[in-house]
Every structure is written in structure tokens, then in C-alpha cells.
């Protein structure tokens, strides 16, 4: 078992430990293309025909839990979509980065560049009836839960047609079966357990994906939620997105144990290579079935990496080395999937380039659409709308002075 605390070993070496590849002892000197196992794959010609693809046997680490199978069923269509989704999130986040630097986005803006495989892998393993809640690095999850790019960017720009009508900004976006980002570290986790309680109460047979960061993992209320989730057998999959840093603090400076998948003690856990979208997909699919079978909660840890700073005001360079960043970039979740798509004859390099170009164009179109959205009218009825459920508002709402009071 590899100690996870403070280990910044290249994840790459773990990708390369493919089972069906004898003689790859010095795999870390070889490229993905070289190690890919096209010959053992039986890739169908149809886009929607299921087939199995391998997952590196170093993708999982378990805690009182059987790991998923080391091959996962997928289709050509899904593999292409995984690539599209991750690329779209990255382009969208890069667009947000640009808009922020143009000073069009205010306040907070936490980017998930580098962590796309987690949001995308999870979404492909669950249904829209399953619920999801996360913390403040939420743009990618919001998109995957069905929001449009322009509604997310519009929100970041504080526009009336943003997903929260300009009221919430970067950390507060909501959609169907998506209970938002949350600006308070750790606070979303008991909420996720509560959402799972509602699913159990209503006997929906679905699960709640309850995401938080390695920084939040030490908050007391998370452990309170663990206890009740297990005590009441709630259908919740806790998921620690371990991107190695809580703001500027590395995991080993914040956590007495950095094995976040074992932090539930009495709750089974699984550590997943969060840089491999297929590993995430396989793990969540597996865990979801286990929870749906009535086995109660799980604690997953997605080992991933944040390329950007904690937020836009943090350059993210003071507390880690350039070498570390470069090393992590060699594990890029999008690049590694791309290699597999090529090696498995799912897409050609040209097709990939065309998709990338198409997504770039699509995102910049969405940026334009978002920028054209009007800002909310600075009027009292717009300021005060939605504090309460429409129709149930108190008659009096007070502005800054007695003259700004609505009766």
C-alpha cells in the first residue's frame, strides 16, 4: 500500500501498471501509446455497442471494501463524450480565467482545471435522479448537472440571465438534482447527508454524491455527518476531492491522517485515481450499486491535482514548486484519455483536434452570449426578490434608509 500523505509521486507510473502488459517494468519511461493494449481490446465499430476497457491496477486502494473490476464497460460514444465533457469544462474554466483577468468577474473564482476527471467520471456513473452537492469549486459539476455554459459564465459575470440571476456568483450555482456549491468549508457535507436522508425517506432508490475537499475533510461536522449516515444507513457516497492543498496548506500539514478514504473508520472507503476519468467512472458505478443494494454510506477519495491557485487571487506558486506542477501536468486527465482514444482506435488525432477546435469555438460563442446578457436592474424589487418564496414575503422589506423601505 502506497502511503498517500504528501506523496507527490508521479501518478503516471500508476497509470502504467496495466495488468495485461507483461514486461513493462520500466513503464515510466514509456509513453501511453506504447503501453496501450489495443490488441486486447475488442473495439466495436458501432458507437453505442458496449465493450470493456482496462483500468490500471493501481487505480484503487480499498478500505473494508471490494474494489471495482479493473475493466469497465463503456461505448465508443461514451468515451468520446467523456473527452468532450472534460475538454468543455477546461475550456469553460479557461474562459472564466480570462474573464477574471479582464476584471469582468468579481470576488471569488475557484477553477477546477486539472480536476475535470472527477466531475465528468461521476456524472457518467450516475443518473439525473441521483443527487449531487459540492463545495465552492463547482463550475464543472454545475455544467455536468445540465447547466448551460452561458448560464454559468453569465452568473460569473453577475448577469440577470446567469444561473442564479446574478445573485450568487461563482460559489452559488444550483440545478436540477444539484444542490450547489457552498462557500463555507465543510458545511455542505451534512447537507448532502440530509439529501440522502430525503432519498431514503422517499424511498427513491437513488444515491447522493457528496463532494468536499481535503481541506474540508477535517471539519467536525463532516465527522458528525459520517456518524449519522452510517447509523441510519443513508444512501450517500461521500467523496473527498483530494487536490493536495487546502488553500496554501498541503494535506500533510493539515491532516493527521491523509488517507481520507479511511477517515470514516466504520464506513468502507475507496481511494480512486482521480486523474483517470475511467477509474472514476468505474469506481462510482461500483459504489453506487453497492449503496443502492442497501449497504449504507461509502467514503471515496479522488486523488487529483489543482493546476491553478486556490482562487484567482492566489497564484498558487508560493507553497509548491514549479517542478511539482510540471510533474502533475504529465498526469493530465484529458491528455491521458486522448492517448487512450487514439491507441484504442476510438478517435484519430485529427478527429480529436477537430473536436477541440469545435469546443473552443462553442465556448467562445457562449462567452459572447454571456457577455451580452443584461445586468440585473438596480431596482428594489429585484434586489429583494427571492429572499423569500414568492407569495410568502413579509410585507415590509427595508433598504438602507427608511425611504428605501418597501411596504
Amino acid at each position, binding site marked *: 500500500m502506497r502511503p498517500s500523505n504528501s506523496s507527490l509521486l508521479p501518478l503516471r507510473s500508476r497509470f502504467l501498471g496495466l495488468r495485461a502488459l507483461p514486461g513493462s517494468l520500466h513503464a515510466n519511461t514509456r509513453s501511453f501509446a506504447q503501453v496501450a493494449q489495443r490488441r486486447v481490446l475488442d473495439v466495436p465499430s458501432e458507437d453505442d455497442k458496449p465493450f470493456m476497457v482496462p483500468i490500471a491496477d493501481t487505480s484503487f486502494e480499498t478500505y473494508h471494501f471490494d474494489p471495482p473490476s479493473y475493466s469497465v464497460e463503456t461505448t465508443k460514444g461514451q468515451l468520446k463524450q467523456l473527452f468532450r465533457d472534460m475538454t468543455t469544462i477546461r475550456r469553460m474554466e479557461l474562459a472564466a480565467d480570462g474573464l477574471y483577468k479582464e476584471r469582468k468577474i*468579481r470576488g471569488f473564482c475557484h477553477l477546477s482545471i486539472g480536476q475535470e476527471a472527477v466531475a465528468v467520471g461521476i456524472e457518467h456513473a450516475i443518473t439525473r435522479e441521483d443527487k449531487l452537492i459540492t463545495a465552492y469549486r463547482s463550475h464543472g459539476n454545475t455544467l455536468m448537472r445540465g447547466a448551460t455554459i452561458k448560464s454559468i459564465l453569465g452568473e460569473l459575470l453577475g448577469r440577470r440571465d446567469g444561473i442564479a440571476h446574478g445573485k450568487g456568483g461563482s460559489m*452559488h450555482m444550483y440545478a436540477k438534482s444539484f444542490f450547489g456549491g457552498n462557500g463555507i468549508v465543510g458545511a455542505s457535507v451534512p447537507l448532502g447527508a440530509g439529501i440522502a436522508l430525503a432519498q431514503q425517506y422517499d424511498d427513491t432508490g437513488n444515491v447522493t454524491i457528496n463532494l468536499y475537499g481535503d481541506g474540508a475533510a477535517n471539519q467536525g461536522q463532516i465527522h458528525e455527518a459520517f456518524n449519522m449516515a452510517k447509523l441510519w444507513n443513508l444512501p450517500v457516497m461521500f467523496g473527498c476531492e483530494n487536490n493536495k492543498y487546502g488553500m*496554501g496548506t498541503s494535506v500533510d500539514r493539515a491532516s493527521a491522517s491523509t488517507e481520507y478514504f479511511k477517515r470514516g473508520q466504520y464506513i468502507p472507503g475507496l481511494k480512486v485515481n482521480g486523474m483517470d476519468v475511467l477509474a472514476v467512472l468505474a469506481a462510482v458505478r461500483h459504489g453506487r450499486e453497492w449503496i443502492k443494494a442497501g449497504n449504507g454510506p461509502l467514503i471515496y477519495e479522488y486523488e487529483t491535482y489543482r493546476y491553478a491557485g486556490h482562487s484567482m487571487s492566489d497564484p498558487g506558486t508560493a507553497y509548491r514548486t514549479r517542478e511539482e506542477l510540471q510533474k502533475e501536468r504529465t498526469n493530465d486527465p484529458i491528455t491521458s484519455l486522448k492517448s487512450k482514444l487514439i491507441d484504442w482506435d476510438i478517435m484519430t488525432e485529427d478527429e480529436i483536434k477537430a473536436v477541440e477546435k469545435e469546443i473552443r469555438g462553442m465556448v467562445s460563442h457562449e462567452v459572447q452570449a454571456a457577455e451580452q446578457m443584461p445586468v440585473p436592474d*438596480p431596482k428594489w424589487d429585484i434586489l429583494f426578490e427571492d429572499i423569500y418564496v414568492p407569495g410568502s414575503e413579509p410585507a415590509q*422589506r427595508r433598504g438602507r434608509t427608511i425611504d428605501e423601505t418597501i411596504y
Partner: protein
Amino acid sequence: MAAPRLFRPALASRLASTPLRSAFTKSCAPSFIRARGYASESGTKEVTVRDALNEALAEELELNQKTFILGEEVAQYNGAYKVTRGLLDRFGPKRVIDTPITEAGFTGIAVGAALAGLHPICEFMTFNFAMQAIDQIINSAAKTHYMSGGIQPCNVTFRGPNGFAAGVAAQHSQDYSAWYGSIPGLKVVSPWSSEDAKGLLKAAIRDPNPVVVLENELMYGQAFPMSEAAQKNDFVLPIGKAKIERSGKDLTIVSVSRCVGQSLTAAAELKQKYGVDAEVLNLRSIKPLDVEAIIASVKKTGRLMVVESGYPMFGVASEIMALAMEYGFDYLTAPAVRVTGAEVPTPYAHGLENMAFPQDDTIVKQAAKLLRL
């Protein structure tokens, strides 16, 4: 206002229970503090609020070995807002402690260390996150001295940015002055200028009670002249004393923290536009409140306006207006008015956000109306 009467804050607070009595002159403060006023202009220097706070922390860490600071990112990252810059290098990891993101836990640890005789300074990255820990601040820190019948003191300082911050929406832009100001057992100060920041933070650290220091993120980068006296390491301001920032005869504007600057801007505009002289009173301290200074000013001007950025209901302004009714009704020539934050969770969009907090022209307009200009 006369030169501020400087007390060791702990002693001043003992006398503050009946705010209107003029007992403050019976100081037991050491003579070197009492004798000192502000230095001449010549020795002043421009210092940012951030550096003033940093200086206060460094001086107190230097002077008192029982003092240490803990909080998120205070050490290696040099503070999320760089208020603790350089302190780790200077005082080492025993005195400057990075905590995990676990507010309830590290606040409890700070309070526990205070119960055991240390003088912790507990930094919240912002007071929004202190809500995770408010039980420890109120139930463990504020009440223990009373519950123990005076046996168990708790010399802890809670500090961090509070109130309005730009573009960060509802969960990160909120003023807690009224929340902490309502709690018996706590003292609450809220600086505006660099001198306020240094003098009040040092007073808070030295005070033997739990003290909440409500700073403001948007003030950190602002520079203010700092007198020669304030640059010294024995500079403290008394907790519970307001300061007249601008003298006037027509209207009293009572304000606190960032709104003091806005009130001064508004006062200048009132002078320029209408020729009226507004007096601007910087509260400095939320609890205890300097009722004496407020009423003295109202006596002079006959009109009272309170400007603060908290929610209007049950707020600092409501309290001051109630006190004005109780102690100053006869001096008022018009009903007192208030300018506050609007009753709304802080919206993200810029135009709406502006409407949720007092702006300079909100203050000017309301003052003009009060003065029937």
C-alpha cells in the same frame, strides 16, 4: 473632544457599566499612559491598516510570551490577507500556528488555552467562518468568567475581517457587529484607521476578557497617518471610547469601521454643497458603546444619524437610536435616522450589491433630508 483619556482597557471596562457617569477620569492607569496624547504632525508617517495590525501583533508577541496567534494560513502563507506577514519567521512555529480548516476546533483550542492562562490571538480568515465556531466564542469564551463566579478568566482575542467585502456574495459579506455586540461577557472593537487598528488590537490582546476585533478587508490596504506616539510599542487605545474624527455643530454622524470613511466623505460633501458642519464620531468600540460621547455630540448638534453596514433590524444603529431615546431625547431637535445595510443577503451582481450597503450619496441624501436642506 479633549485629548483621549487613555486607560489600560481592563480598568476602563470596570467603570463602563454606567456609561453616563463621568467616572472615566478616575483612572488607575499608569501615569505614562495617561500623560501621553497624540504626537505633533511632524513625526507622523503613513501606515496601512494591514501594517498597523501586523505591528500590533508583532509588538504584543514580543512583549508577552503568553501571547501566540493561531488560525488558517497565518504562518507559512503569511496570512490569507497578509496581516500576519513575517510573524512566523520572527517568532517561530510555537507562537505562530497554522491550523487546519476547522474553526470550531481551533477556536475551542484557543479558548481552552486562554482558560489555562495563555493569551491566544485567534484569527478567523473572515468572521463569516467564525459562525462555524460561534458557540465557542459565546458559550465558552464570553460566559465562563461569569459562570465560574469570577474564578476563571478567559483572555482570548478573536480577530479577522468582518462586514462588507466586494463581489463575494451572501456567505462572505456580512457584518457581525450586532451579533457579538449583544453578548454580555464579550468586548467588541472595530477599527477604521491605522491608529485605531493598532491601538485597539493591542488593547484587545491586553484586555483580560475575551475581545472580538472586527476588522474590514477593504481597509487593509488603506494608508493613514500614524502619529509618533502611535508608532511606539506602548500605544494602546481605550476600549469603549469613541473618537471625534471631524468636529461639527449641525449634525452628529455616528459611525464605525469602514463607514467612518464614507461618513467623512459625506460630511465634506455636505459642507461643500450645503455649508453644514457634520460632526463624525468614530465609535471604535461596539461594546462597550461610548454613550457619553454620542450624547455629548447630540447635545451640541441636536441631530443624530447613525451609519453602519449591518442589517437594519436589531442592529448597532437600532441600539444607538434606542440609547438616544433613553439618554438624549431632550437634546434632539429631529427624530434620529439611520443608514444601514439593506435587509437582504448580499447579492453578487455589482449594481445590486451597491444597493445593499450604504454608499456616500445614501449618507448625503439622508443627512440633507434630516436637516431639511
